[in-house]
């Protein structure tokens, strides 16, 4: 399954890609902002940074049993600082579809589009 984020900035595209990833599991709009998780990611290029970022989102969903409805991304060179905002998964309320096992390098792309906006995408394994 592919996830793709668009944004006015690279950071916003990364945030939207993470929201698309969450949407594979639950509707992000149904997630309440109760807890925050901080992550730090690295990557030699934009694509590897996106892979590390989405991998971190998958990891914290799986290891904490959480879902997230909002993301904040700050990128400085090869480093990304991110905030994941959400709550513990409630199966009855969230009705999750399928768990995301990993972000993959398939169709992995970060690009600035002709209109100046940004795209960030990859396929995730479910």
């Amino acid at each position, binding site marked *: *399954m592919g996830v793709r984020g668009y944004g006015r900035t690279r950071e916003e595209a990364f945030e939207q890609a993470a929201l698309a990833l969450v949407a*594979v*599991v639950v509707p992000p709009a149904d997630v309440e902002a109760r807890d925050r998780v901080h992550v730090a990611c690295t990557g*030699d290029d934009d*694509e*590897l940074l996106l*892979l*590390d970022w989405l*991998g971190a989102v*998958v*990891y914290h969903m*799986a*290891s904490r*049993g959480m879902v997230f409805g909002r993301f904040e991304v700050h990128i400085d060179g090869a480093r990304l600082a991110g905030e994941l905002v959400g709550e513990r*998964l409630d*199966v009855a309320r969230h*009705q*999750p*579809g*399928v*768990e995301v*096992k*990993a*972000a*993959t*390098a*398939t169709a*992995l792309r970060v690009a600035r589009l002709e209109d100046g906006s940004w795209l960030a995408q990859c*396929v995730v*394994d*479910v």
Partner: protein
Amino acid sequence: MNLRQLVRKSDIEWWIPRTGKMSVPGIIFATEDLLRAMDDKVAEQVANVAALPGIVTASFAMPDAHWGYGFPIGGVAAFDPEAGGVVSAGGVGFDISCGVRNLCTGISVGEVGPRLARLADTLFRLVPCGVGSTSRVHLGPADLEDLMLRGARWAVEHGFGALDDLLFMEEQGTVAGADPDAVSQEAKHRQRDQLGTLGSGNHYLEVQAVAEIDDEEAAAAYGLRTGDVVLSVHCGSRGLGHQIGTDYLKTMLAEAKHGGIELPERELACARLDSQTGRAYLGAMRAAINCALANREVITQFAREAFAEVLPSADLTLLYDVSHNTCKEEAHDVDGSPRRLFVHRKGATRAFAPGHPEIAAAYRHVGQPVLVGGSMGTASYVLAGTSGGPAFASAVHGAGRTLSRHAATRRWKGQAIVHELGSRGILLRSPSMRGLAEEAPGAYKDIDSVVDAAAAGGLARKVAKLLPLACVKG
């Protein structure tokens, strides 16, 4: 798929000739109908794998192949360490050692009768399934370390499963060469509450009936009779394997860049088998295989408890346990010479021929059981390995998707699937209606055609067809 790029060798065997950087041809086993339904990306991925260093003979795709990550799902490729061969995390997949195990129950469909609903409810209650589910087994660091080294044997020694089960697993339930030190803390952390959980997606626990027998001798050896009830489990190594795949994809991307390996696409990230990263990945992957074997053994214990509650006369004995996302070191004859190879099977099942020493003694005369999982509502199959298997003793693993999850949810609703299958006498239990819609039987290829193609291509022979009675879906 556009067939003009292929050379037809027979009704089932289609070649992608060597071009460009391919060092071996690609070979797809499928009928023309199955091929036409495949995405063009399958041929592209088969060709990409054929360009990896040290590949031997050919890059193969099974009849259930579909577009995967780097390798096609349903892909098989063997690499020679003496020829600069590689191991690829993408070639194994993120769900390391995902597999199927079948258990004979010793009872007939008639004996289950009206207790089927209670059995489905009890299995659903005792076997954790679905997104975010956790186990009643919590693993501390020492236990997890031991489990990664000892696999299903760890489970049996901790009261989950029976000692005889180990006889009917690949590598007798413990893969040698696991290296817990090559597994990240994140991967270990992700696994601590997931042992004995089914997961979600296409994973399931299914009560099935033996509907047809095609090979009496093999069926008798496997303990299958028409009308018998079988329990089937489909799941993998859970969070540990997912995180190992994630970790080593990144490491191998860096390794390939610095090691001069040219990747046709990034998901094919790989490392030389004799490199530090290659050895570390093999150690971590084997730890995940052991985790998967232990996971299916713990689930088996929970399932036995469910049967004991509802049908105490049942005696669940393990028919076999197969993994279909692995890289295994095996001996194969290549052009008449024995070679030690690392065989990647991504969405493909090992299918050793009769007489192979690694097959359980009770089955050695008929060949290795090949367990092919269906999707809820469709048939599953038991096949057997055949002599002269053309793809390093490999066969199909399932039906393979034809529709995306998104397309499936637009076409079907979970509750409607429950009613539709219920009207056919098939019970469904799941924590998520959305999950059921995504896994609608219509989103998958026709498994009968896939299995017929596998048999016609000499990959395996048909032994028995199983039909679902009740399915617990994550």
